[in-house]
């Protein structure tokens, strides 16, 4: 039962509630970094990592410190401070212990601090808390959100690669045609509506 609900949460985060294409979080890096495939993958992996770590830290702080003392309003300030600090810490640790990884991913880390997707996921998982949605669900959700980000980025990098060779009218060159391509990509994801509920019946 637990496994089923975890899988359902994971798939939903990637397909039906894709953070980029359905929830509109993380659009700036989505449009900016998806030009080349390897930068897209690097960015997405870094984002996934930070998302899971951030959720792991902020979830207990909210549930066990803020709610009991009635200070839910401190959520915004504390979460963003924690995320900023966490990203700095990850950068320092990577630089020291895995320099190769730092060279390929590390440059995206400062960019992730202001990524609305990371702050978004930490706040959105808290809205879902209930009898069948616990800490582990939140972690899986965050992981799924990151993977969804990866899927969207990779697909979009492929689409943009094809756009390079196309003959685009002058006024549409650059951002307009990219946004139209994004709209069609997002349209394709609408087709997944209802997929997860059918696949993994939970009741």
């Amino acid at each position, binding site marked *: 039962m637990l496994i089923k609900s975890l899988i359902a949460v994971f798939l939903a985060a990637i397909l039906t509630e894709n953070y980029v294409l359905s929830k509109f979080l993380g659009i700036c890096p989505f449009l900016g970094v998806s030009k080349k495939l390897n930068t897209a993958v690097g960015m997405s992996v870094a984002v996934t990592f930070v998302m899971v770590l951030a959720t792991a830290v902020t979830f207990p702080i909210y549930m066990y410190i803020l709610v009991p003392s009635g*200070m839910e309003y*401190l959520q915004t300030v504390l979460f963003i401070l*924690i995320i900023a*600090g966490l990203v700095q*810490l990850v950068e320092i*640790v990577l*630089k020291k212990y895995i320099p190769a990884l730092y060279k390929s991913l590390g440059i995206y880390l400062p960019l992730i601090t202001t990524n609305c997707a990371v702050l978004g996921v930490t706040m959105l998982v808290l809205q879902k808390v209930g009898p069948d949605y616990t800490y582990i669900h939140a972690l899986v959700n965050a992981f799924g959100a990151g993977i969804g980000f990866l899927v969207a980025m990779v697909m979009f990098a492929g689409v943009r690669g094809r756009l390079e060779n196309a003959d685009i009218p002058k006024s549409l060159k650059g951002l307009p045609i990219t946004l139209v391509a994004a709209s069609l990509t997002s349209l394709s994801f609408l087709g997944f509506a209802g997929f997860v509920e059918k696949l993994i019946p939970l009741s």
Partner: protein
Amino acid sequence: MNGILFAVALVAGIGLLIGLILSIASILMAVPKDEKAEKILEALPGANCGACGFSGCSGYADALAKGKAEVGLCAPGGLACVTEISAILGVETGSIEKKVAAVHCMGSLDNTSYLAEYNGIKSCAAALRIGGGLTACSYGCMGLGDCEAVCPYDAIHVCNGVAVVDNDKCKACAMCVKECPRHIISIVPYKNSAVVRCSNKDKGAVTRKVCSAGCIGCKKCEKNCPVNAIKVTDFCASIDPSLCTGCGVCADNCPQHCISYLSPY
């Protein structure tokens, strides 16, 4: 009042805790900065072209700082860069001779033609996949500008259907050499160098049919060269840059006028 105090204390407390963790981490896990490598990196041109053989300028700077690389490997940096790096490392300045890229083709639209009108992706590599390229001479420059697109110094342009190098701007980073799908660009020394402007390996009669400026393999250049620097193989002449003195005898004797020299001696 109590609530406000608690809130302020909580935020301040968490902020201080984060600051403390970060400070401890940055001390405990400090990576010793290599000052030399950073100074060298600033001295390098920063084009990340890879001509030195390392993974970009930072790779070369690290290797230099550790003493694992020679000083003169950065062609785009030139003599100024070599001098600066030698000063940082405290070694004697070596000399570096100027090299440039040379296109072994002069098949402009005046000399040769296309077999068909090409309306596909504007790239030599792409056009090459369609029937081996649509130029009349199947060895020469296609004129679709892959070299021009990849050059970081704006030193090579397609003029009148053939690629031409601007010797003042060229830094011999060799990106065009790697990019040309027909491999007709090479790096040669700038001073005292003659270049054969043809890569056509077909017999003379066949060559003349497709291009009026192609090498026919008559060997007049080979017979006249005082230092034996030029040889004809497969009906196409080629010059060994290490032997060439730039005297220009080959160029004067060539009936097709397809040899040129880079700087007047």
